[in-house]
């Protein structure tokens, strides 16, 4: 599953058993919106396979922006972004789509499509790959049951509660069995009890092998477990292992 094409010579590891490349590597990345000031400066970090980390910093620090850079819906104004060992600066839209299929993302505002049912929303990543519905129907139904939406499959997202929407959004991020899960402020709109359960879900997911990045400014959440922290402040990123 690891793709070694276009691999950067400099990152070749010494030992073959360590050959799995970092899922994400940022080198000297800078970003400005239009002609505005640089929101992010000299960002350097990696996300190793199967790692678990918080991406934190005050509101407006650039957490969402950084996640967009990982998803490549935003191009850095300078520096280099490497995904799954591939330098993506010259990637075509189709090549980026192929890499995005290995990343699941949960947005703060969920971004479910209102004209589709919950089932169709969760199946969307597989649908856009052009797969036959019969080939994934069982998988989608099982995942919906797993997140507790088994009896809400055929309703549109507008009539789901906030917590249900979030679980649908998480299910959509997971259906493609991604190597990396990004969650933007997942506890932003939920009560502390649910926040705790969500965190447990992410930890469980991480134990099954998925790398997890949780962007949050919720200190109480981060205090619940001891995990790696990527801290954004004044446009720069500091990593606390």
């Amino acid at each position, binding site marked *: 599953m690891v793709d070694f094409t276009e691999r950067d010579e400099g990152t070749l590891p010494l030992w073959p058993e360590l050959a799995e490349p970092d899922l994400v590597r940022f080198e000297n990345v800078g970003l400005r919106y239009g002609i505005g000031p640089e929101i992010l400066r000299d960002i350097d970090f990696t996300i190793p396979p199967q790692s678990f980390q918080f991406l934190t910093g005050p509101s407006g620090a650039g957490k969402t922006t950084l996640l967009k850079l990982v998803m490549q819906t935003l191009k850095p104004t300078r520096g280099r972004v490497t995904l799954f060992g591939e330098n993506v600066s010259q990637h075509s*839209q189709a090549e980026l*789509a192929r890499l995005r299929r290995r990343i699941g993302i949960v947005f703060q505002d969920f971004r479910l499509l209102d004209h589709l049912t919950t089932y169709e929303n969760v199946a969307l990543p597989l649908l*856009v790959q052009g797969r036959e*519905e019969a080939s994934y129907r069982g998988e989608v*139904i099982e995942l919906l049951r797993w997140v507790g939406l088994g009896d809400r499959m*055929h309703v549109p997202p507008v009539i789901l509660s906030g917590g249900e929407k979030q679980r649908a959004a998480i299910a959509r991020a997971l259906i493609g069995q991604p190597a990396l899960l990004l969650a933007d402020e997942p506890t932003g709109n939920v009560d502390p009890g649910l926040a705790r359960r969500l965190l447990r879900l992410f930890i469980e997911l991480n134990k099954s092998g998925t790398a997890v990045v949780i962007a949050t400014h919720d200190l109480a959440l981060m205090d619940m477990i001891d995990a790696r922290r990527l801290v954004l402040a004044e446009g720069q990123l500091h990593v606390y292992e």
Partner: protein
Amino acid sequence: MSMSEPPASGLRARLMTGLGGVLLKPLLVPRDRVLAPVLPAKSRSGAALMLVIAIMTFLASLTAGAVHLVADASRDWSRTIAREMTIQIRPAPGRNLDADVAAAADLARRQRVIEEVRVMDRREGEKLLEPWLGTGLDLGDLPVPRLVVLRLAAGLAPDLSGLRAALAERVPNALLDDHKLWLSRLKAMADTLVGIGLMILTLVLVATALAVAFATRGAMAGTAQIIDVLHLVGAEDSYIARQFQGHFLRLGLRGGAAGALAASGFFIVAGLVFGRGAQGSALEQVEALFGRFSLPLWGYLSVLVIGVLVAVVTGVVSRVTVYRTLRGMEQAQ
């Protein structure tokens, strides 16, 4: 956590495998509803665009039909006129008009390329003037020229310099008119009409393309958020373009078919009405211009081609527009 094994009941699972599965699958997979299209319904409405496409196809088909009719008619006229010539003998003082007419006809009959010589008598000549001078006028005293109509044998390139020379010598007041001037004017007019027709066709296609481009952009305008989500879950631009293109191609095919059918219907009805033989002067005018108004088979074929062409233009333009808009969206982020 495991999400690999689909929960399938034993019997169903067994039935679904093997040859039986191939046959039974459509019945066993619960298809309580067809998967909703990825794009919302409001981006897929297109009744107005379909009407525009139908009207454009209809107009383009009428134009193409008219071009066919004019081209055919002008070919017919040219063929007839090219085989006809006239000798005009003007009355001249001191000459016997009847003797001159007989002499000219006699000279003409001696030409091998001339198949038929017909002398128009005085009354026939006067009748030709009626449209200009009105009826009931006594032309007896007026010096009306006389005409000898010559019909050339088919297929021969006529060399009439001999006849011209003989006429100049023996009947100096005769004038041989080979209709070349008429013919060239007629051809020029027909060519102009065909040119105008082709220009209209081009304009109609361009207008259709513009309408489709605007409609595609309109359909995409409300879907920026959705397209963003599609990109993030790994959709390729080609997948998104296919969703729009498929929809617009269907609109184009339906609109094109409707327009082409309406135009064919028009020509069939028109052929029945005018084809029965023109009655009344207005119809005679139409017939003079368009011949019998019966579209040849390949006229209908070109109507069909226009319908298909419009549908293809619709599909291609919407695809190009989607790609351009997607690229614009990417850069705007």
